[in-house]
């Protein structure tokens, strides 16, 4: 595939490396001459100096034959315009924009950007996973119907000391694993009694998240 990347910062640099390794034809468009020269020194002629929002630059790099166009500069407005020019002027089939302000997601989709990646949201999610008091963590999402979450049972929750069958769990949710400090992980049964600090891994529908949270952590 021919992939054009706008922005040669850290994201653009490592993305290019990864895509080249996969055998794609990749070209970075970068405004800053120093950054551009550095990339060329390290990876060869994969970077062109220019403004990725300018029609003439995009014409020169053959945007019309690009299969994918990815804008990863640090500015949302630049990524939006680059993708819109690629989409509307050069008919690139797939455009991807990095966004900093998570609120821009709907706007970008509405304006013809095919995919948005919110670096802010991704960072927040990962940090939340590391916060020990955070009661519900998303581990994995399968499409929009199923997700795997982890819930830590806080001391004082009404669920503590109760067998699982007595909890009012949302329908369709499956508690699939209990991790207890100093013990091997166990697959819970209806009779398993929950303790404070247990980590419960559950498969649920996204809409049951709140119900599961209150059933396991409610006081």
């Amino acid at each position: 595939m021919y992939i054009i990347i706008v922005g040669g910062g850290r994201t653009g640099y490592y993305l290019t490396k990864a895509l080249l390794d996969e055998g794609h034809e990749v070209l970075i468009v970068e405004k800053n001459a120093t950054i551009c020269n550095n990339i060329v020194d390290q990876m060869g002629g994969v970077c062109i100096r220019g403004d990725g929002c300018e029609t003439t630059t995009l014409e020169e790099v053959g945007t019309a034959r690009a299969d994918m166009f990815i804008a990863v500069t640090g500015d949302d407005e630049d990524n939006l315009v680059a993708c819109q020019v690629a989409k509307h002027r050069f008919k690139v089939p797939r455009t991807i924009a990095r966004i900093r302000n998570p609120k821009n997601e709907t706007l970008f989709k509405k304006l013809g950007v095919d995919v948005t990646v919110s670096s802010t949201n991704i960072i927040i999610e990962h940090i939340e996973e590391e916060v020990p008091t955070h009661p519900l963590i998303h581990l994995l999402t399968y499409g929009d119907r199923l997700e795997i979450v982890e819930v830590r049972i806080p001391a004082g929750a009404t669920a503590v000391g109760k067998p699982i069958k007595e909890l009012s769990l949302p329908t369709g949710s499956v508690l699939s694993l209990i991790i207890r400090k100093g013990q091997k992980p166990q697959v819970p049964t209806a009779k398993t009694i929950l303790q404070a600090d247990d980590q419960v891994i559950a498969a649920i529908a996204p809409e049951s998240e709140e119900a599961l949270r209150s059933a396991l952590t409610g006081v």
Partner: protein
Amino acid sequence: MKVVIMGCGRVGAQLAMLLDADGHSVTVLDVNADSFRRLPPDFGGSALLGNGIDEEALRRAGIEEADAFIAVTQGDNRNVMAAQIAKHIFNVPKVICRIYDPLRRDIYETLGIDAISPTTVFARLLKEKLET
């Protein structure tokens, strides 16, 4: 008419002054409080610190009730993004933005954004002046 102007540079401030003098309700938005020094002392509208590509800031500027939105910051892309937010999210009836780059202006014109390229306009003006 209620008008929100994004960017209190020379053009933004001048336009704000003219509209205010005509009795329109004007709100000027800029990321730099220092820019508001360009507004005349007797300016009757409001000056608001904020980024016009942020929906919250636009809401605070009263974009939901605005009859017109003008984007005249130094950044083409910022202007274009703000204009599209005003048009497609807030449905402001009249939206005009400045795009220095003539080619970019043409693209957004085809996308239904009312845009003026001062580059084209000024070059044409100069040519006319030379020829008369």
